């Protein structure tokens, strides 16, 4: 059992963050960032995030394992068909990677290879099911594996997306297909989290709240316009706009979200965009 799985099973509050692999072959910056995040429970390694081509997350996740960190390997359905996904999953297990975050993936049109053919042979629900199959010793064709992998499978959810009832329907399917934890998209309105958790709590699956550090009003506006599923509401835009020190205000906002997480969720997933040094401040009670 991974340390993350163990902690969540013991109902402890967990902390995660993420690292994007390099656009290139030098991993030193990524490993430096991992060092900054070493007090956290696990580190997500993103998979061609935002549909921009980067180094394989499998490679970086293994390097983190070698350094004693605990990665959460993100795997999307955008770039691989069912054979490639399963073979990467077996490879991950062989490389000592246990935590997974299984995702649909952003559409290529948002990325730097907009002419790429989107694969989506599986969706995230089916990928979860495939991973459960591998754990049970069978591939998607029903063929027996010589040795079965062991995984702690996570999934994503966007609690603030509307209609929320529809979001919950997909959430339920992911629970049915073996999601052992959820990491959420950033939620900026408490009532969205409240209503979501009121419905999701009965599943008993730990939810780790996405907390995003807003650095400025400009950044918040950029997120609203360019990042699917992220909507910073007007009142927060105003707070950032009027603040003497917008970054400090961003830290305050993030801290409020961490307090919601302590009330409703079982952890936080921090997205600090180069301001990892502010994590202790964000997590301060």
């Amino acid at each position, binding site marked *: 059992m991974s340390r993350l799985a163990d902690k969540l099973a013991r109902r402890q509050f967990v902390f995660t963050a993420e690292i994007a692999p390099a656009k290139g072959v030098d991993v030193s910056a990524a490993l430096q960032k991992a060092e900054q995040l070493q007090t956290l429970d696990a580190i997500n390694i993103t998979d061609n995030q935002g549909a921009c081509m980067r180094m394989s997350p499998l490679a970086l996740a293994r390097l983190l394992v070698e350094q004693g960190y605990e990665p959460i390997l993100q795997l999307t359905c*955008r770039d691989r068909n*069912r054979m490639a996904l399963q073979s990467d999953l077996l490879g991950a297990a062989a490389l000592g990677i246990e935590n997974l975050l299984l*995702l*649909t*993936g*952003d*559409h290529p*049109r*948002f990325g730097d290879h907009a002419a790429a053919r*989107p694969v*989506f*042979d*599986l*969706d*995230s*629900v*089916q990928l979860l*099911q495939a991973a459960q199959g591998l754990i049970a010793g069978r591939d*998607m064709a029903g063929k027996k594996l010589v040795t079965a992998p062991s995984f702690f499978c996570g999934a*994503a*959810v*966007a609690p603030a*997306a*509307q*209609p929320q*009832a*529809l*979001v919950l*329907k*997909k959430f339920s*399917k992911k629970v*049915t*297909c073996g999601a052992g934890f959820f990491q959420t*998209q950033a939620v900026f309105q408490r009532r969205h989290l409240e209503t979501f958790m009121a419905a999701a709590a009965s599943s008993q699956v730990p939810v780790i709240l996405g907390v995003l550090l807003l650095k400025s009003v400009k950044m918040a506006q950029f997120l609203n316009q360019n990042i*699917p*599923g992220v*909507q910073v509401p007007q009142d927060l835009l105003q707070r950032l706009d009027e603040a003497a020190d917008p970054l400090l205000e961003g830290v305050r906002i993030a801290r409020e979200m961490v307090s919601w997480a302590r009330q409703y969720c079982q952890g936080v997933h921090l997205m600090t965009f180069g301001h990892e040094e502010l994590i202790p401040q964000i997590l301060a009670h």
Partner: protein
Amino acid sequence: MIISTPKARQELEALLQDCRTLFLIGCGSCATACKVGGEDEVFAAQEWLEASGREVTGSLILDEACHIMRAARELRRFREQLDEADALLILACGAGVQSISDCTEKRVLAAVNSLFVGNIRRFGQYEEKCSLCGDCILNETAGICPVTNCSKGLLNGPCGGMEDGCCEVETDRDCAWTSIYQRLEKQQRQGVFDRVVAPKDWSRKFKPGKLSLERSIVDNGREKHR
């Protein structure tokens, strides 16, 4: 209907560089409806070619360019004009182009790009509704195809990019899964949300597709038409 658009004149110009004489073929079916290969477009192509110093040896509008045997029969009637041409310029979909390239040794040039199988909203406005995936799920999705209408073709619900019921890829378009959900709600049915939909069987779509009806079915149809 096959929806297609004309290739840019610049691209055609480069394509026709070594062709001095051409025979033009349009299609009376989809290409006419899409305004890429009907009488008007074949005539316009002829004018353009002649203005650029080329000779058009003749032209023909096939009823349905996708009908291989009929295309061959029609082409035989124009043998002399075809023989005089350096190449055949086809103003029809990719299927039509290949009916013709199947029955001549001449160089066959495609003048249009085929886009999708489309429904017609109104004249000049076409929408893709069906991707011909070979494994129809419409009965469970309230008659809205997620394979086609969801940008990612997801089968088990919306992705994380849905915002206020709109698609992340084109934010002014409804998320297909919101439409499916709303229609199922109105019908008070669970539909596709009642089960985990298994991955699609793409083996039904191995290329090239081929279907041969049994002889008895074909003959039965002929009887009735008689």
